[in-house]
C-alpha cells in the first residue's frame, strides 16, 4: 500500500507558460506546462548514493530485471557475459528492502531468481544469491517479449509496494509472437508497472523497444557495444531507486465546448499522450505520467476553445496532478495551473508566440523529421530523406539540441546547418542510424 504520508513524498508544482492573448475569432490555445517534483529528500541520492537508504526509508519498491537469453545472445559470447555482469551491477544498486526478481527471456519466460513465483527482498545475502544464480544464465531459444512482461507483471504484483518497475534487455526482434500479442500484453501491463527497455547490439527493432518503453512510461535506449551495459544498467537502477511516487496522472479540466487537440510530454522526451486519456468526471480526463523522483518534465497542451468577443477572458484548461487510489477516488497532489484565453484587438499581443511553445513545437517537429527522414531513407526515397533530415539538422541547430545534432551528423554530411542543407552519407554504421532513431525523441529545454 502506498504510504503517501511519508515526508519523502515530493512536492509537486505546476507552472504554465503561454501567450494567453488571442485575436478576434481566435480559438487555439497553446501552453507549456512544467511539472516539477522536489523535496522528496532523495535526489542527488538517486544519482550518487542510493545505498544510503536503510530498509523502510525509501518508498517500498519492486523491480524485475528481464534479460534476453535467446540463442543470439551467444553471438558474440561477450554479449551474454556482459548482460550477466550488467544484471549483477544492477542488483548491486538495489537498496536494501527492495523486492526484486530476475527473469530470463526466450520464447518463454523463466524465473532465474528467486523462483517459485516470488520476489526476493534485497540484502547482502539475497544479492549474493541472485548473482550466483546469474551464472546459470545461458543462451538458447527464441524471443517472445510479451511472455517476459507477463511474468514480470505477475511477480511485481505479488508485492504490496508503492513503486513497480521493470528493466528489459533484448538483442533481437520479437520473432516468436505476433505484434498483436505484444500489443495486447503492453495494454494489459500499462499502468501496472513502469519499464525501461534497452536494445543491445544492432539486431533488434527500434520501434519494438521504443514502443515498450512508451507504453510502460519508461526510457528506451541503445547499447550498441555490450561492454557499455553495466554502466547503463547501474544508471537505470539508480533512477528507479530515486522514484518516490507512482501512477501520477496529469488531470486536465476543460470547459464545455472545448476540444483537446493534443497533450504531449515534450521534455525530457517527446511522448504523445492524447490518446491515453482516461475520463475522470465531467469535462476532466487523466493522462498517465508514471512514477516520479525529483525531476521536472514539460507538457504541451493544445486546446480549441469556443470563440468569444474582444475583451472576454476564459479558462481554457485547468491542469492538476492526481494519483488514482484503489477505491476509485484520487489523491490530489495540490499543485495546479491555469491555461487562459483572453481576446484582444492588440495585434502585438495576440500575434506573439510564447518562446516555450515555439521551442517545443520545434522539438516535436525535430523528432518527427528524424523519424520520417529515416523511414524515407529505408524506403529508398533519397530526396525525401534528404529533405527531412536536412530540416532536422536545421531544427537541432537553432534550438541548441547538440546531442541530436551530433547523432544526425553521423547519418548525413552537413553542408549548411542553418539552412538545413545536407547530403546523405553513402555509408552509415547501423549502430549510428539506430542510435539516432532511438534517441530522436530526446529534447532540450529552453535556454532561459
Amino acid at each position: 500500500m502506498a504510504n503517501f504520508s511519508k515526508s519523502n513524498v515530493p512536492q509537486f508544482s505546476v507552472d504554465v507558460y503561454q501567450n494567453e492573448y488571442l485575436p478576434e475569432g481566435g480559438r487555439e490555445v497553446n501552453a507549456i506546462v512544467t511539472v516539477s517534483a522536489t523535496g522528496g529528500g532523495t535526489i542527488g541520492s538517486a544519482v550518487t548514493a542510493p545505498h544510503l537508504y536503510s530498509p523502510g526509508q525509501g518508498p517500498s519498491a519492486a523491480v524485475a530485471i528481464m534479460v534476453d537469453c535467446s540463442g543470439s545472445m551467444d553471438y558474440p559470447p561477450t554479449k551474454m557475459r556482459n548482460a550477466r555482469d550488467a544484471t549483477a551491477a544492477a542488483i548491486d544498486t538495489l537498496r536494501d528492502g527492495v523486492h526484486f526478481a530476475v527473469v530470463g527471456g526466450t520464447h518463454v519466460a523463466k524465473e532465474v531468481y528467486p523462483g517459485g513465483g516470488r520476489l526476493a527482498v534485497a540484502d547482502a545475502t539475497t544479492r549474493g544469491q541472485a548473482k550466483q544464480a546469474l551464472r546459470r544464465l545461458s543462451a538458447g531459444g527464441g524471443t517472445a517479449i510479451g511472455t517476459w512482461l507477463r511474468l514480470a507483471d505477475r511477480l511485481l504484483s505479488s508485492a504490496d509496494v508503492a513503486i513497480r518497475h521493470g528493466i528489459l534487455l533484448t538483442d533481437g526482434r520479437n520473432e516468436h509472437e505476433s505484434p498483436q500479442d505484444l500489443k495486447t500484453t503492453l495494454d494489459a501491463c500499462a499502468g501496472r508497472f513502469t519499464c525501461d527497455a534497452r536494445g543491445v547490439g544492432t539486431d533488434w527493432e527500434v520501434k519494438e523497444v521504443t514502443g515498450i518503453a512508451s507504453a510502460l512510461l519508461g526510457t528506451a535506449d541503445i547499447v550498441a557495444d555490450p561492454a557499455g551495459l553495466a554502466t547503463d544498467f547501474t544508471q537505470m537502477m539508480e533512477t528507479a531507486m530515486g522514484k518516490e511516487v507512482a501512477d501520477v496522472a496529469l488531470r486536465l479540466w476543460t470547459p464545455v465546448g472545448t476540444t483537446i487537440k493534443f497533450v504531449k510530454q515534450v521534455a525530457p522526451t517527446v511522448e504523445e499522450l492524447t490518446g491515453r486519456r482516461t475520463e475522470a468526471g465531467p469535462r476532466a480526463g487523466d493522462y498517465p505520467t508514471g512514477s516520479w523522483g525529483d525531476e521536472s518534465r514539460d507538457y504541451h497542451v493544445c486546446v480549441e476553445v469556443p470563440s468569444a468577443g474582444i475583451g472576454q477572458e476564459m479558462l481554457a484548461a485547468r491542469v492538476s496532478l492526481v494519483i488514482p487510489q484503489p477505491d476509485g477516488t484520487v489523491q490530489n497532489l495540490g499543485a495546479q495551473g491555469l491555461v487562459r484565453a483572453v481576446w484582444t484587438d492588440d495585434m502585438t499581443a495576440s500575434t506573439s508566440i510564447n518562446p516555450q511553445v515555439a521551442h517545443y513545437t520545434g522539438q516535436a517537429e525535430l523528432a518527427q523529421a528524424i523519424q520520417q527522414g529515416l523511414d524515407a531513407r529505408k524506403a529508398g526515397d533519397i530526396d525525401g530523406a534528404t529533405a527531412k533530415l536536412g530540416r532536422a539538422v536545421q531544427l537541432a541547430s537553432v534550438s541548441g539540441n547538440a546531442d541530436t545534432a551530433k547523432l544526425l551528423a553521423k547519418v548525413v554530411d552537413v553542408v549548411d546547418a542553418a539552412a538545413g542543407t545536407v547530403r546523405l552519407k553513402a555509408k552509415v554504421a547501423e549502430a549510428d542510424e539506430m542510435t539516432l532513431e532511438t534517441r530522436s525523441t530526446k529534447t532540450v529545454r529552453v535556454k532561459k
Partner: protein
Amino acid sequence: MPAPPSGPAPDEPTGPDGPDGPDEPDHYPLAAPQPVDPRTADLATPPAGTKTCVACRAGRVDRDGYCENCGHAQPRERDHMEQELDAVAAVSDRGLRHHRNEDAFAVSATALPDGSPAVIAIVCDGVSSATRPDDASLAAAHTANETLLASLPRGAHPQQAMHDAIVAAAEAVNLLAGEPRTAQQQAPHQNAPACTLVGAVVTPTLLVVGWVGDSRVYWIPADRGAPPARLTEDDSWAAQMVAAGLMSEAEAYADDRAHAITGWLGADAYELEPHTASFKPDRPGVVVVCTDGLWNYAETAGEMARAVPLDAARRPLHTAQVLVGHALDGGGHDNVTVAVLPFPAPPQGAGSA
C-alpha cells in the same frame, strides 16, 4: 507648462439651476444598472457554488473566479465601479474591448480652514504596455486623494496642494516597481508600473486642475450658451506636434502615434512635470474629469458639452453614467472613467464625505 485653453468667459450670469428650469427635488437618481454584483462581500467568504456564471447562467463559479461549466471569467470588482457623494460622483467601466479595467478614481470632500467646502476628484489611467497598470492607477488615485485630504484643511493653496499630490502619487507608483510581482508573474516584458493622473479640486470660488499624461478636465457651463472649454493639455505626441507647430491638430491626431503619451507617473518616467492650473469661473457649471476612454468619443469641448445632460450639476452620478454610456455606445474601445463635479462646490457638501 502648456497654457490651458481660455477658461470660462465672463459673461451673462445665470442662476444656480442653469437653463433647465427651477430646482426640483430630485434626490432619487436611478440606481445604476447592476446585473451582477460581484462586490466585496461575495468575494471572500462563501464557498464556490453560491454564484452562478453570468456568461452561461448554468455553471457555478469556482474560487478562481472562472465558471465551472463554460470557463468564462466572472466580472471583477473593478470592471464597473460607481461612487457618489453630495457634490461629486464618478463611474469607471472596463469598456467593451479590454479584459480588465486598468483605470481608477478617487472622489472625496473636505473643508478648507475657513469652513468652506472643497471637493476632490482624481482619475488615473494605467499604461497598458507597462506591468501592473491596474495597481499603478489605484495607488496613484488613492495617494493623490489622501494627500489633498490632508493638505487642504491645513490651508495649503489648492494649486500647490494639487502639485504636491501629483508628486506624492508619482512616488507611490514608483514604489510599486520595487515590490515583488503578484498577478503578472509571467509577463513577458517587465516595465515599471505606470499611469496617467488628472485631478480637480472645486471650492466655492476656485477650480484647480492638475495632470500628467493624457487624461483630461472639461468645463461645461450650466448655461449652454456660454462656451465650454478643455482645461488640460495632453502630454501626448499629438499635442506636442501641434504645440510645436509641426502639424495641424487633424494631422497629428490621425497619426498612429497620436496617443503615445510623453508624460506619466511611474519609475520609467525620466522627469516628472506635474501641470497645474487654477480658474475662477464666473458662473456655475460642471467639471468633467475623465480618461481618454471617454474623450475619444467626445474630443472637443463642444462635443463633450453635447454629451453632458443639461441637469448635470444636480445629478452628477447620472451624468457620469450617461457619459460612460456615451463611450460604450461609441464602441467602448478602452476603459472609461469619468468624475463629475458641480461648480461652485455646494455648501452642504462640506464635511459630508
